């Protein structure tokens, strides 16, 4: 039922909002501005590519749009004018973007060609500035992107835009699950099979996590990238290999092990190097920014990944010529082991071996490789012990995290932490 006394200014306000979107393609933000009294002028503000709506009118505009839309749904025979309906939906969703049904109605308008797809992406981006973790907005975005893909849109341009939007949302709300999920989805669905974009993302993400040391979601995205880099069929960039090589040397040079290990020649240089360099970055961040659980969680991931590489060698070796073969990782690979019986393909059991099977190594070379891995494991654990003992005693929270880490190393990873002098 229509209300007896609808808010008379509502339609004008909706038209003004619509006009701002039309005339300002660079519009980037929307927010509700706290102005409690009606001063008899328009409550729609437009300054420096930002759209504002004065708070006094919000409840009136929302109730008006809500009832009008619900009425339109009931009177299916007498359809609301699509342009009007689109304006009503824009107004309602800017105020309350959680109403799934209203997004569905926008999808219907898009399907019918009554709304423009690019314009829709712009609308969602602006809406996300106020509600950066809105599930429905991201779901709708994916839907629009899928439609554009089917229509043959330029993938590169789409990817570029989506990466920007998800970064923007991640910047505005910490640990933004949906923003980072969206980014992963885009990389999986829009990125070409080449490695260039992965390298670009890897570098950008290093800068991002270094300035967001509490953001576990951002770090988890980095784990996603690392997995992709490790699985990559092509070789990684010279830069990455070089950093990796130096990181391995740095790790080994700090260990108590006197042996001169020539790991740099190994077939595992790419994967071990990637993990080693990430581990050193993580160590640096933990020491510079004390008391951040996200950093310690990320570290676990790196150590588990390293353990997986050791397992991979022991698997290939069969008997396993090294002491570490008895302490096979209990975490992901155990899951994978259990799952591989039931899951024939997909994400779980495709534990891509970092060492390519067609890479022929003589038994002598394999022996050397195993010896190197043993040394490296020793060096890594020494590094862990050093980190734990190096945490300042006056940093209580950091101390707590370090203690938890030691416990995790021995109980979950099942590796002993050596004593450091």
């Amino acid at each position, binding site marked *: 039922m229509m209300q007896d006394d609808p808010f008379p200014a509502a339609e004008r306000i909706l038209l003004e909002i619509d006009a701002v979107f039309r005339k300002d393609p660079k519009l980037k933000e929307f927010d509700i501005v706290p102005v409690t009294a009606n001063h008899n002028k328009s409550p729609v503000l437009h300054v420096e590519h930002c759209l504002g709506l004065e708070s006094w009118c919000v409840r009136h505009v929302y109730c008006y749009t809500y009832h009008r839309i619900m009425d339109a749904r009931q009177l299916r025979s007498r359809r609301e004018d699509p342009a009007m309906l689109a304006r009503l939906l824009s107004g309602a969703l800017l105020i309350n973007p959680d109403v799934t*049904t209203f997004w569905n109605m926008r999808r219907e308008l898009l399907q019918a060609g009554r709304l423009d797809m690019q314009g829709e992406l712009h609308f969602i981006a602006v809406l996300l500035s106020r509600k950066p973790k809105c599930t429905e907005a991201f779901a709708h975005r994916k839907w629009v992107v899928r439609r554009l893909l089917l229509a043959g849109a330029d993938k590169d341009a789409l990817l570029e835009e989506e990466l920007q939007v998800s970064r923007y949302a991640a910047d505005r709300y910490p*640990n933004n*699950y949906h923003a980072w999920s969206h980014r992963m989805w885009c990389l999986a669905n829009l990125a070409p099979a080449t490695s260039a974009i992965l390298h670009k993302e890897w570098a950008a993400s290093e800068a991002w996590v270094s300035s967001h040391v509490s953001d576990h*979601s951002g770090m988890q995205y980095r784990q996603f990238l690392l997995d992709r880099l490790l699985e990559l069929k092509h070789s990684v960039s010279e830069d990455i290999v070089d950093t990796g090589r130096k990181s391995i040397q740095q790790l080994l040079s700090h260990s108590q092990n006197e042996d001169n290990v020539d790991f740099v020649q190994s077939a595992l240089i790419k994967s071990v190097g990637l993990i080693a360099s990430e581990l050193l970055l993580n160590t640096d961040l933990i020491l510079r920014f004390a008391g951040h659980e*996200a950093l310690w969680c990320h570290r676990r991931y790196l150590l588990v*990944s390293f353990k997986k590489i050791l397992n991979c060698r022991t698997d290939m070796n069969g008997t396993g010529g090294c002491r570490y073969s008895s302490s096979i990782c209990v975490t992901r690979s155990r899951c994978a082991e259990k799952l591989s019986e039931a*899951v024939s393909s997909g994400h779980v059991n495709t534990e891509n071996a970092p060492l390519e099977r067609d890479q022929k190594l003589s038994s002598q070379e394999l022996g050397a490789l195993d010896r190197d891995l043993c040394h490296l494991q020793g060096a890594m654990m020494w590094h862990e012990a050093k980190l734990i003992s190096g945490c300042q005693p006056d940093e209580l929270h*950091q101390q707590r995290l370090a203690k938890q880490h030691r416990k995790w190393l021995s109980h979950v990873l099942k590796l002993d932490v050596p004593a450091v002098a």
Partner: protein
Amino acid sequence: MATLMKDIILSSSHPKELLLQKHADFISSYGVNKDEYEYCMTEYLRMSGVYWGLTAMELIGNLERINKQEILEFIKLCQDDAGGIGASVGHDPHLLYTLSAVQILSMYDALDIVNVDRLVQYVKSLQQPDGSFCGDKWGEVDTRFSFCAVACLSLLGKLEEIDVEKAVEFVVSCMNFDGGFGSRPGSESHAGLIYCCLGMLSITGHLHYVDADLLGWWLCERQLPSGGLNGRPEKLPDVCYSWWVLASLRILGRLHWIRRESLVTFVLACQDPETGGFSDRPGDLPDPFHTIFGLAALSLLGEPAIKPVNPTYCMPQHVVDRLGLRPQKLTL
């Protein structure tokens, strides 16, 4: 400089006793006191709101204060021609609200109010070739919807209508190195989604895929010095995670791994001593969502004044028993 930990500090002014009567009053007056704006702002999740309120009322023995006939009429009106159920009259059907409706009808033993055959067809139609479920016809995939689908069908005794093995396969593909689960393969572990995935595996009897020690470890690390639980690293504690984390630990048979006393103190501190109801954190505004999860958590923690709750379905245990359902639980 000492680092600030993301946690809250409980003061002596927060409630320490369970305010049962106030919670019953809070729920029974919740819909009545709302103004038009609040009603329009929240109608999009009304069906779930009703489920939260009713479950809370039943757990504290006050369900008779709710007008059953009105609720049943409402649900009937929310079923779409395609069989799915929407959040409210005039809203589109969705798995989230379809499950809420089925949970309410199970509690009232009134499943025949809706067209069950069509409802089952609706749920079935949302399964994808990879075993996952979309929340509705628009295609968003999430492990939450896998839980909704199997919970819903099992309550109706129709689990065999979908490809359970494929459904399990998808959920298991969302498992991470820390033992947890995310919304899609490769997504970050999240306590709410872990609950959904464990619930799904519990209903279908596939908990053997889970590394219970590893996941239990992660879940216990959600407990902060205040006693409260968060849902991911470096997030603030929130009463709703008291439920998702605890229910998960209960399903894994590792509930005793948590520091019980301090968690009870935290949950009780989240009660509103004036209006009744629970909020996310002490001192915030209460709502039915946090109220049911606060009460259900206390039930799992052994509060005798609250009826036992089933950790898989978040429904009164006696209802799950009446339906003859035995969702799987692990033991240590």
